[in-house]
C-alpha cells in the first residue's frame, strides 16, 4: 500500500518547505518515504513540484500519479490536475479550483490562525495529514524542530496553522487512503546530496574546490556546511579549470581532495582529468548529470554524459567511474571513489544526476564518524626515492613533498624520477606502466547486481535508474514476465567477464536516461554485449516504474 502526495506551486512559494516538512513527519511516523523534486531554472514563478510517496514497504521509484495533490496556485493546479489518480483528491489554495477540486483558502486560514501568509505551508501540511487520516503529533514535532531557532512564538503560530489546516480539511478528512504507519525502520530523511557530502567528509576529504553548477551544488553546499566540523577547506574557484587543477595540487601535497560539477563544468575539466592521469594523482570528481548538450535543461535529470566521462581528456589513461543506484549506495560509492583514486593514483568519478542528488529517503542512519581512508602514502622515503618507479602493477610508491626526498611531477613524459624526458623508450615504459593500472582496476570492478534472480530477459541499467527499474521488474514479474535487472554500480572500466556473466545468452534491454543507450554501447565496445533493445528517456524527467512498464509492454 502506498500513497503519493504532490505539493505544487511556483518557485518561491514554499513548495520545498512543505515537502520537506511532510517528508520528515512521515519518516517520524515510521513510513517509508521517497521524495522527489521537479523544478525549473528560475528563482520565482514557473511550476515546481515536490512528490512525497509513502508506503509500508520499501520504495524505489517515484510515481507519476498523485493520490493527493496540493496546488498553491492556478498554473500549478492546471498542469498537474490530469495526474491525479482515479481515487485521488486535489486541493487548491484559493476560492475556485473548479469541479473535482477541493478549494480551500489555506492562505486565509494561516492569517486567521494568527500567522503570516508564508505559514500557508503549515496549514497545507495540516490539510495533508488530515486527508491521510494521520494523527498530527509527528508533524507538530517536526515543526517544533524546524522553528526552534526562531523561538516559542513561531512554533506556537505554526502549530496553530496546522490545527487550522486540519479544521478546514472538512470532508477531506481521511478521504485519501494511506499506508499504515510504524512499518518502516525509524531513520532520518536524507538526500542524495547529503549522503554524498557526508561520505566525502567521513572519508577524509580535506580540500573541496568547485564552481557552482546545478545539480552538483547540493553536494558542494553540504560540504561547506560540514566544513567546520570535519576540518575541510571549501574554496569556491574562479572557474572549473581552477577547481580541478587546485584539486590536483592538493592531492600532490597529500590530502584527499575533490571537486563537484555538472556536464558543462566537467567539459572544462577535461584537460585537468588528463593531467591527473599523467601525474598519477588521486583527483576525485563528483559529476552530477543534467541534460545536454550545452546548457539545455539545468534543473532536470539525464544520464547523457557517460561516454564523455569515460573518454574525457586527451591521451589514454586509467580512470574509474562509479554510478550509485540508491542513496545508501551513493554514500558507499563516494568513499569507494576516494579509495580507488588513492589505490591506483588515478582520477575517479562519482557520477550521479539531478534525480538522485535531490532524491530524499529515510534510510538506516549513515555513519558520520570520521573514518579517513588510507592515503597509501609512503613515509620516510630515502634520498633515492623516485615518484614513478616502474612496477608490475603499474602502481608506484607514492610520497608527498616535505619528506626525505624530492617528489617531482611533470605533465611532460618523464623518467621514473619525474623529470622531463625526450627518450622514446622511457615514454613507452611509463605509458605501459600507467595502462597496467587499468588492468588492476578491472580486476576490482564492482559486479552488477542481479534482481531478484537471473531471468530470460534482463533490464540493463546503471546509476539512478536502479530504483525505477527494480519496481518495474516487480510489476512485470507479478504479471508473469520472466525478467530481472542487472544494475552496474561501476560503469568504467568494464570487466567483460563480469558483464557477460550477468548478460550472456539473455535478452537484454538497456534502460538508460539518454538517446543512445550509452552504457550498452560501452559493453558492446568491450565485447560483452551483442544485440540489445533499449528503453530510453531524455525529456529531462527521471524514469518511473510506470514509464518502464509502459515501454516494456509495447
Amino acid at each position, binding site marked *: 500500500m502506498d500513497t503519493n502526495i504532490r505539493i505544487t506551486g511556483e518557485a518561491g512559494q514554499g513548495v520545498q518547505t512543505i515537502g520537506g516538512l511532510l517528508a520528515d513527519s512521515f519518516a517520524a511516523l515510521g513510513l517509508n518515504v521517497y521524495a522527489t523534486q521537479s523544478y525549473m531554472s528560475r528563482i520565482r514563478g514557473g511550476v515546481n513540484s515536490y512528490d512525497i510517496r509513502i508506503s509500508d514497504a520499501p520504495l524505489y521509484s517515484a510515481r507519476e500519479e498523485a493520490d493527493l495533490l496540493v496546488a498553491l496556485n492556478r498554473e500549478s493546479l492546471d498542469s498537474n490536475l490530469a495526474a491525479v489518480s482515479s481515487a485521488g483528491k486535489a486541493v487548491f489554495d484559493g476560492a475556485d479550483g473548479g469541479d473535482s477540486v477541493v478549494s480551500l483558502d489555506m492562505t486565509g486560514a494561516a492569517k486567521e490562525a494568527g500567522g503570516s501568509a508564508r505559514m500557508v505551508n503549515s496549514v497545507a501540511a495540516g490539510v495533508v495529514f488530515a486527508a491521510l487520516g494521520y494523527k498530527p503529533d509527528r508533524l507538530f514535532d517536526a515543526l517544533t524542530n524546524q522553528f526552534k531557532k526562531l523561538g516559542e512564538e513561531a512554533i506556537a503560530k505554526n502549530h496553530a496553522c496546522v490545527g487550522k489546516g486540519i479544521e478546514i480539511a472538512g470532508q477531506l478528512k481521511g478521504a485519501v487512503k494511506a499506508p499504515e504507519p510504524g512499518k518502516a525502520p525509524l531513520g532520518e530523511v536524507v538526500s542524495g546530496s547529503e549522503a554524498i557530502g557526508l561520505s566525502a567528509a567521513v572519508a*577524509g576529504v*580535506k*580540500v573541496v*574546490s568547485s564552481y557552482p553548477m546545478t545539480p552538483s551544488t547540493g553536494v558542494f553546499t553540504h560540504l561547506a556546511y560540514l*566544513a*567546520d566540523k570535519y*576540518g*575541510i*577547506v571549501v*574554496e569556491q*574557484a*574562479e*572557474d572549473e*579549470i*581552477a*577547481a580541478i*587543477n*587546485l*584539486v*590536483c*595540487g*592538493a*592531492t*600532490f*601535497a*597529500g*590530502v584527499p*581532495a575533490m571537486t563537484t560539477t555538472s556536464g558543462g563544468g566537467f567539459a572544462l575539466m577535461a*584537460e*585537468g582529468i588528463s*593531467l591527473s592521469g599523467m*601525474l598519477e594523482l588521486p583527483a576525485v570528481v563528483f559529476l552530477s548529470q543534467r541534460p545536454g548538450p550545452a546548457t539545455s535543461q539545468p534543473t532536470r535529470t539525464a544520464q547523457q554524459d557517460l561516454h564523455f566521462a569515460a573518454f574525457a581528456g586527451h591521451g589514454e589513461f586509467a580512470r574509474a567511474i562509479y554510478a550509485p543506484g540508491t542513496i545508501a549506495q551513493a554514500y558507499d560509492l563516494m568513499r569507494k571513489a576516494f579509495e580507488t583514486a588513492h589505490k591506483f593514483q588515478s582520477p575517479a568519478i562519482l557520477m550521479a544526476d539531478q534525480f538522485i542528488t535531490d532524491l530524499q529517503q529515510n534510510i538506516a542512519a549513515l555513519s558520520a564518524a570520521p573514518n*579517513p581512508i588510507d*592515503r597509501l602514502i609512503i613515509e620516510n622515503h630515502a*634520498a633515492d626515492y623516485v615518484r614513478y618507479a616502474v612496477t608490475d602493477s603499474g602502481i608506484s610508491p607514492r610520497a*608527498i*613533498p*616535505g*619528506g*626525505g*626526498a*624530492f*617528489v*617531482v*611531477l*611533470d*605533465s*611532460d613524459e618523464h623518467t621514473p*624520477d*619525474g*623529470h*622531463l624526458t625526450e627518450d622514446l623508450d622511457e615514454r613507452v615504459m611509463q605509458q605501459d606502466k600507467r595502462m597496467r593500472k587499468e588492468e588492476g582496476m578491472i580486476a576490482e570492478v564492482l559486479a552488477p547486481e542481479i534482481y531478484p534472480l537471473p531471468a530470460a530477459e534482463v533490464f540493463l541499467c546503471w546509476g539512478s535508474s536502479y530504483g525505477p527499474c527494480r519496481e518495474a521488474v516487480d510489476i512485470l514479474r507479478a504479471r508473469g514476465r520472466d525478467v530481472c535487472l542487472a544494475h552496474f554500480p561501476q560503469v568504467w572500466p568494464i570487466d567483460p567477464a563480469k558483464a557477460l556473466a550477468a548478460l550472456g545468452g539473455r535478452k537484454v534491454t538497456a534502460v538508460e536516461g539518454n538517446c543512445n543507450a550509452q552504457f550498452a554501447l560501452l559493453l558492446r565496445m568491450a565485447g560483452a554485449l551483442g544485440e540489445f533493445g533499449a528503453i530510453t528517456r531524455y525529456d529531462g524527467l527521471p524514469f518511473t516504474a510506470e514509464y518502464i512498464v509502459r515501454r516494456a509492454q509495447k
Partner: protein
Amino acid sequence: MNAENKKQAPAWCPGCGDFAILAALNKALAASGIDRKRLVLVSGIGQAAKLPHYTDANVFNGLHGRALPAATGIKIANHSLDVIITSGDGDMYGEGGNHFLHAIRRNIGVKAFVHNNQVYGLTKGQASPTSDIGFVTKIQTHGVVSVPVNPLALAVVEDCSFVARSCVAFPEHLEKMMVEAIKSKGFALLDILQNCVTFNKVNTFKWYKDRCKELPADYNPRDRENALRTSMKWGDEIPIGVIYRSDRKSFEEMTPALAAGPLAERYGK
C-alpha cells in the same frame, strides 16, 4: 644535497635570460635559508616552465596556464611548504589570466616569478599578452595591435600583497627581489623582464638594460596611488623594484581550518 640538479642540462638557447633567472633563484633560495625539501616549484608549460627541472626541489610541472590553481591547492593542503611558481608570461597572463586575476584576490602565500620575455618562446615566437604594440610575428603579420597587459598595475588595483619588477640584466637586483618576495606574506608577484634571444629581437637584453631603472631609495611601496602611477610606466624608462606592498591578511591566516596546522600533516590524526 647539492643545490643544482645534476641530471638535467637546461634545454634553453645559449644566451637566454632564463639562465640568469635560474642562477638568481638558486642564490635567493640559499640567501633565504629555504629548506629545499620543503620547497615546491610549480610551473605550467613553456620555456620558463622548464626551470624547476634544473634545480633541486619538489616539482609540480603541470598544465600550460594552470600553475596558479595547482600552487593554490598545494599551499592549502600544506601551508608549511614554500611554494614558488616559475613560469612564462603566456602561461600566467594569457592562458592563465583568469587565475591570475583571482589568485591575487585570494592572497594565498604563493610567490609567482614570471619570466616575462614578451613572447611565446616554446611555440616559436607568437605574440604574448605583454608583447608591445607593433611586434611582428608569423601570426601577427602586421604587428600586434592589442594593448599589452600590465600585470603590475592589475596587481596593484587588486591590492596584491607584494608587487615587484626586476630584470635579468640586473642579476643582483633580481636576487634581492626574489628574497623580498619570499619574505613577504600572502601572494607575491615578481615580474621578471627576460630576453629571448631567438624570438624577441626587439626587447633584447640591451633594450631592457638601457631602460630599467631602480626605484629611488625613498620610494614608498605602501602609497597605493603612487604605486599605481609607477606601475603604469613603460617605455624609455621602466621602473624596477618593489612597486607595491599591502598588509592584507593571507588566505592561510583567514582560513579557520588551517589554524591547527597543515592539513597534509594532520591527516588522520
